[in-house]
């Protein structure tokens, strides 16, 4: 008979069950919750009316679920609104639990080096412990989350402009060099770019908060980025190995990003999107939100511009974010530009290039060059890092691009 498994093993097993939202897990474990965006019907004001269940050990909770009696927990019934819904959930969970080998799953996590911290345990991130919607369990690979310095979240839309991406990389790099730990979601677009900047700086450790298991990098394109962030810093999740980053997990993940940060910077966001949720979660916690102003014509900035209108501080330069964190820019001479100066012949082309993506047609009209000569100038500018282009759109580069 195997040695008795620790409480963490049972929590891991419970969180592997399908549809085990953070609020439901907490209901089974007997903790009154203020609610998260992943659960409806529980808000801070509703707390007084919620039936308060006695604290239940994870092992007993597992036994309860496994035997199909999860609907005997009143807090769960309250969460799911009707007895029928609770009964259905209980039956589904019992069926899934029957196929689950708790010891084997726990072993997998141990071998993969995944640290599992339960709310209330000494290793649990202090910053999250006092949060009103603290996750019951935090999975981590990489370094400790003990934040030896301020943390700043950089978030934004997946479908960002090339300019927004560049800003995210620069902010990530500048903040890391100043000693701030950058928190982000490892999504496409702004999130990934921010962490690429952090990795390029090679200083303060990044924190990636993800919406699934560490063995399922999402998106697939960011597989390497996940590994690099885990290596240089830490990956954090509310979910065990094997969990897919399904869309319902993202709002919950966004609250963890906000909770870990001392300030949140939204680089580019559409009218609605995950980064707007992160901003809301930050505001609800009294965490300052900054936004990078964007072109009023660009739908990719509509949300971030609205935050500015509603009172978020503008982030027009690294210094603005550093000021919000009460950090100084690192002293010393500014990093010299490693790029060779552009040749005089390229002058008109550089002048015709904008900081937003500019089409070839426009460049031809503005410079009056023939296509061949223009193409050569652009190609040389790209080789030396002064411009970047693809698919007929070109733009100036403010700084040599990290990692290209």
């Amino acid at each position, binding site marked *: 008979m195997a040695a008795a498994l620790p409480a963490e093993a049972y929590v891991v097993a419970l969180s592997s069950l399908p549809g085990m939202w953070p609020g439901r897990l907490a209901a089974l474990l007997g903790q009154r919750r203020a609610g998260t965006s992943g659960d409806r019907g529980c808000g801070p004001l509703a707390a007084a009316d919620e039936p308060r269940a006695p604290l239940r050990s994870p092992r007993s909770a597992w036994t309860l679920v496994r035997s199909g009696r999860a609907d005997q927990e009143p807090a769960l019934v309250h969460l799911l609104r009707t007895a029928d819904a609770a009964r259905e959930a209980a039956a589904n969970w019992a069926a899934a639990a029957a196929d689950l080998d708790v010891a084997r799953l726990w072993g997998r996590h141990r071998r993969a080096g995944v640290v599992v911290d339960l709310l209330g345990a000494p290793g649990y991130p202090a910053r999250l412990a006092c949060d009103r919607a603290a996750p019951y369990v935090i999975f981590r690979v990489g370094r400790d989350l003990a934040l030896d310095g301020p943390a700043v979240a950089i978030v934004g839309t997946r479908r960002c402009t090339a300019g927004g991406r560049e800003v995210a990389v620069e902010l990530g790099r500048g903040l890391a060099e100043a000693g701030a730990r950058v928190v982000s979601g490892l999504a496409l677009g702004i999130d990934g770019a921010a962490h690429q900047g952090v990795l390029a700086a090679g200083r303060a450790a990044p924190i990636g908060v993800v919406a699934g298991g560490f063995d399922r990098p999402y998106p697939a394109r960011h597989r390497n980025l996940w590994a690099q962030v885990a290596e240089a810093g830490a990956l954090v999740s509310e979910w065990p190995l094997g969990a897919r980053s399904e869309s319902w997990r993202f709002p919950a993940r966004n609250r963890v990003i906000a909770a870990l940060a001392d300030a949140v910077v939204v680089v580019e966001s559409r009218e609605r999107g995950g980064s707007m949720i992160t901003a809301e979660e930050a505001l609800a916690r009294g965490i300052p939100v900054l936004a990078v102003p964007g072109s009023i014509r660009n739908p990719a900035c509509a949300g971030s511009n609205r935050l500015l209108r509603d009172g978020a501080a503008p982030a027009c330069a690294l210094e603005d974010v550093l000021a919000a964190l009460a950090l100084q820019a690192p002293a010393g001479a500014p990093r010299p530009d490693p790029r060779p100066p552009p040749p005089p012949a390229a002058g008109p082309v550089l002048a015709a290039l904008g900081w937003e993506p500019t089409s070839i047609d426009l460049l031809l009209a503005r410079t009056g060059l023939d296509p061949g000569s223009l*193409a050569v100038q652009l190609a040389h500018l790209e080789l030396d890092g002064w411009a970047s282009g693809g698919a007929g759109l070109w733009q100036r580069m403010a700084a040599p691009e990290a990692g290209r």
Partner: protein
Amino acid sequence: MLFLDELGEFPAAVLDTLRQPLEDGVVRVSRARHTVVLPARFLLVAATNPCPCGEGGPHGACRCSEGARTRYARRLSGPLLDRFDLRVAVSRPDVGDLLDAPSAPATAVVAARVVAARALAAERGVRCNAALDGSALDRMAVLGPAARRLAEHRLRSGRLSARGLHRVRRVARTLADLAGEGGAVLDERHVAAALELRADVAVLEGAT
């Protein structure tokens, strides 16, 4: 000539059937015990939006979900798009700049250039430069050191495949012919222009 509008709306299986005629210039139809080989040498022209709603691209007015964009982009498979010699990105022009631009030359003028270029190709023993194979390219579409540097940068960054490089050289060869330059060594200008005419396909998936 075959013009396919809204390339992304064709089922992937249908687009797949184009590969053989594009490669071999023939279509093989098999029925019962007979196989008929039909000539299918054609110029393929296609048009597509970057995403289903048509607003996609880096300026970001796209309303599509990520799943819809990926599915759409997946239909235009890598191998199919790689077979296009020219991939031109067309964006919404800024009206002011276009109105001030110099006007384009007349068709007759361009036609004369095409005839002259075809003559240069004929001197090489081919109907048109698309027929030049690898060894012919090595003799008659040589990359000078500056041009080679450009090509190497693209190859190394993964934006150009080996097969893609062959196509770029053929296009550059044609651009040189159109400019009246028949010499074996390709000028950097033509190679740069040919590279520019071969747009990055990744942008279809929304990677900026």
